[in-house]
Structure formats: C-alpha cells, structure tokens
C-alpha cells in the first residue's frame, strides 16, 4: 500500500471510522513508513491545538464593541 492510498482510505472513512480490514492495512503501512507516521502524529497534535483554541474561544473575554459601532447599531434599530 502506498502513502497516497493510505490518505485516500483515511479521507473516504473520515468521520465514520475505519473498517477492521482498512485499519490493519493502514497500521501495516504506518509501521513501515516514517513519513506517514510523522504526518499522522502531527495531524493529531494539530487537532489537539484546535480543541485548545475552541476551549479558549469559549471562555475568553472579548473586547467590547467600539462606541461608534454601538451608536450605529442603536441608530439602525431606532429607524
């Protein structure tokens, strides 16, 4: 199995999980392919970074609206 085929399998099974057969094929490829191992390790770490960003966005204190924008919204609502 080539790297391209592994990527295609992962894309096709995205969000739904691999079949047992596909998983065995992918794992066999990863065992022998340093480039793909590093790629998937990095990909998982990027997903962790996205989850961290999502949590940060959820609780961060946003900067307030500018007074100009507030007045613009209020004027539009009054029309």
């Amino acid at each position, binding site marked *: 199995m*080539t790297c391209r085929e592994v990527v295609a399998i992962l894309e096709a099974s995205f*969000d739904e999980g691999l079949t047992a057969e596909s998983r065995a094929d992918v794992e066999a490829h990863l065992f022998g392919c340093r*480039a793909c191992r590093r790629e998937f390790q990095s990909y998982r*770490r990027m*997903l*962790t970074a996205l989850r961290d960003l999502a949590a940060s966005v959820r609780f961060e204190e*946003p*900067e307030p609206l500018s007074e100009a924008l*507030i007045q613009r*919204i209020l004027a539009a609502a009054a029309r």
Partner: protein
Amino acid sequence: MRTDARGGDESCLADNPNPPGALRAGDPAAFEALVRRHGGRLLAVARRILADEADAADAVQDAFLQAFRNLDRFEGNAQVGTWLHRIAVNAALMKLRSRKRRREDSVEALPPRFDEVGHREDSGGVWPDSTEASLDRVDLRRQVRAAIAQLPDAYRTVLLLRDIEEYDTAETAAALGVTEGVVKTRLHRARQALKSLLDPMMARP
C-alpha cells in the same frame, strides 16, 4: 451545538434568560444594554467567520436588528447569549454569501504531495507534543487563528463551525446549505490545508 458560558453572567437586565417586558416592548435602554453586554462576543465570532473587520461589524449590526425584531420568538428557556450567538453566526454566513467572492482559491495545491509511485514527497518534520514546555500555547493559538483566517471561505467556515463552534455535521450542513457529505469532505480538506499552512512554523526535524 454547544451551549456554554458565552452568555456570561445571566443576572443583569439584558442577560435575563427571559427578556424583560421592557426589551420585548422595544425599550431603547434595554436594547442598548443588550448590545453593550453581548456585542463584543458577537463581533468576535463574526470576525472569525468573515476574516474582515468591516464585514464583521455589518454582520453584528444585522444580528442585533434581527434579534430585536424577533424577540417574540426567543424561547424563554434558552440563554440570551447563546441565542444571540446563533443569530450572529447566521448573519455572518449571510454576509459571506452576499459579498463578492474572494479567497476562493483551492486548497488542492497544498500538500500532501506524492511522487509518481504514490509515496510522500514531503516527509517534513513532526509537530512537538503540546505538553512540551517549549511550546507557548498562547502563541500557538495565535498562529492557528492566523492560519484559519487564510483558508478559502468555503473551507474556513466548515472548519470554524465544526471545530471551533462545535456544531455537529448536520447543523453545519444546515447552516451552510450544503449536504453532510460536502461538510465532511471540506472539513477533512480544511484540516489538511490548515496543517500545511502551520507546518513551516510547527514542524521540527
């Protein structure tokens, strides 16, 4: 979609889970309190979706006007902040659809690339573990935000709704007016593209 602390402290007048009569009756002071209380959070989500300051400001204005006109549809058991957030996401997506198309470049040009027999051409470095002390999480968030803003609109919106706003696939498909299959494909490609954009900063030999 998650419901969370976005509504902040729900104790003040403009945050009451059940909008007071003054707000429903169109009291300008109650509306102003609502705008001041929630505006910053709505602008933040509109900025993420639109990646444009002027468009984000327009979307926030649209969102508040829609909310103001539809107060009677507000369900009393929801939090005002969550309700407004949803309206702002939709207003930003509407703005995105209405503006002149841009950032529609494909993500296909981004790696992974393969040689003629199907092996990876770019066996680049690997990302460090996020638990490594050397990795500044604040800086990483800043870089991830900047990379997301570079994604083409169609990919950025899917990634934001699924991975940051935490909509599920069906909610994302409904918000964008596409099929769930399209959402899955775009999310996969958006994540691949995001990784490619971040690799030069993140990957280590």
